[in-house]
């Protein structure tokens, strides 16, 4: 949920209209997960498949060339773990 919208009713925008385009970026979808992805860097071949399949677009390459998930957005759906050709990702309790 956008932190901006968590406010007293008096402060809510007229008609609950969103006046800041793109404020969905503030939506902490990471709140929803019970499992989070963890990458075994020994197994990972840095192919980037997981980032392509992630429906949240929350996996991106880091300086070392690995693909960690941004847990602010990761919903814990497990698609990355399922698609990884090397079974390098395991879903662990968050």
């Amino acid at each position: 949920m956008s932190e901006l919208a968590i406010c007293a009713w008096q402060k809510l925008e007229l008609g609950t209209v969103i006046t800041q385009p793109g404020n969905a970026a503030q939506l902490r979808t990471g709140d929803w997960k019970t499992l989070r992805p963890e990458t075994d860097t020994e197994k990972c071949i840095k192919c980037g498949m997981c980032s392509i399949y992630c429906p949240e677009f929350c996996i991106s390459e880091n300086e070392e060339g690995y693909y960690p998930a941004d847990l602010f957005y990761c919903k814990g759906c497990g698609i990355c773990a399922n698609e990884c050709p090397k079974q390098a990702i395991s879903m662990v309790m968050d």
Partner: protein
Amino acid sequence: MTKAIGLEVSLAIAEAVKQANVDVVAAYPITPQTHIVEELSVYVANGELDAEYIPVESEHSALSAAVGSSAAGARTYTATAAQGLAFMHEILFITSGLRLPVVMTVANRAMSAPISIWNDHGDIMAERDIGWIQIFAENGQEAYELTIAAFKIAEDRKVLLPICVNVDGFILTHMIEPVTFIDQKKIDDFLPPYSPALTLDPDKPATFGPVGVPEVYIESRKQCEQALLNSKAVVQQVLEDWGKSCGGKYKLVEKNGNDKAKILFITMGSLGETTMTAVKELEESGESAGQVRIRLWRPFPREEFLEAIADADELIVIDRALSPGAHNGPVAQEIKALLFNESKRPKVHNVIAGLGGRDVTVKDFQKMYAMAKADELGPNYLIWGVRSDA
């Protein structure tokens, strides 16, 4: 003010919409509202009214188009009745939820089945909780004047809510009544152009109608509810200003007859005129009868109503709709709930009258009065005039 002319009330309402200088009319014709929107289409076609006329394929689309145009900052009008209002149902909530000041005439008509094109309040009573301001006109002049005032009420920055002006189908819409039109200049001074607080604007993008997750929904509803509650003061102020600068004097709740009358009729809409005659005759024959007319139905004017009935011992609440399975008709339910916490509570009788266009005459009111006095109206409600074998 000019001289009164004889005119069908629907055409007077169309004139009011024209004089309010609307930008968009989106409507689908349905009896008994048709003449209003037909006349408006003529005004637009012949250039008398510089507006977009959107001839939609249904009432659902009519109100949807109205929502869009109002969100784009246009002064917007629509009208409907009965099944048409029901077909708008989901959009009715969206209009108020998005705080869009659409003005709508509801030519009140009975709900099917069986099909009835005639008047009662079954249509609007099924839409009590849509979050719109709801007012009732009693005659043609009122229908004309309240339609203009409605725009000023709805567009007030403290309100920004849709409003429906209820006009009894046929009994008012198709009646030829003397109507006094108000000078355009006066109306222009009274009603400045609509200046929206938020609009759909590509240069300043906004999302109207996003998802309201559980963390937000309650606050969102509270915002709309409070706006509706606050609108009472604005309705009152606008009607006062209207009385001073343009037309007649209107109150949220109006009283007629002996101020200290012991038995009061409570009515909404055109039946008030018939009641007025009945009350006058009852008074002349020495009875303690009076009348209270509720003009503003939503938000319900509690304080004004309680003040109006303060001296009464008994109320005969006339409902023009059934609330099947409930203790009373909608208006009587409202009043009983309001009275429950009061220390002095008059006795409340409830008569459901005039369903599906059945005539309710002066004699009927006199009979109701006599039955109330003799305590023959029963504890809950009585459906007036229903033929029965028993």
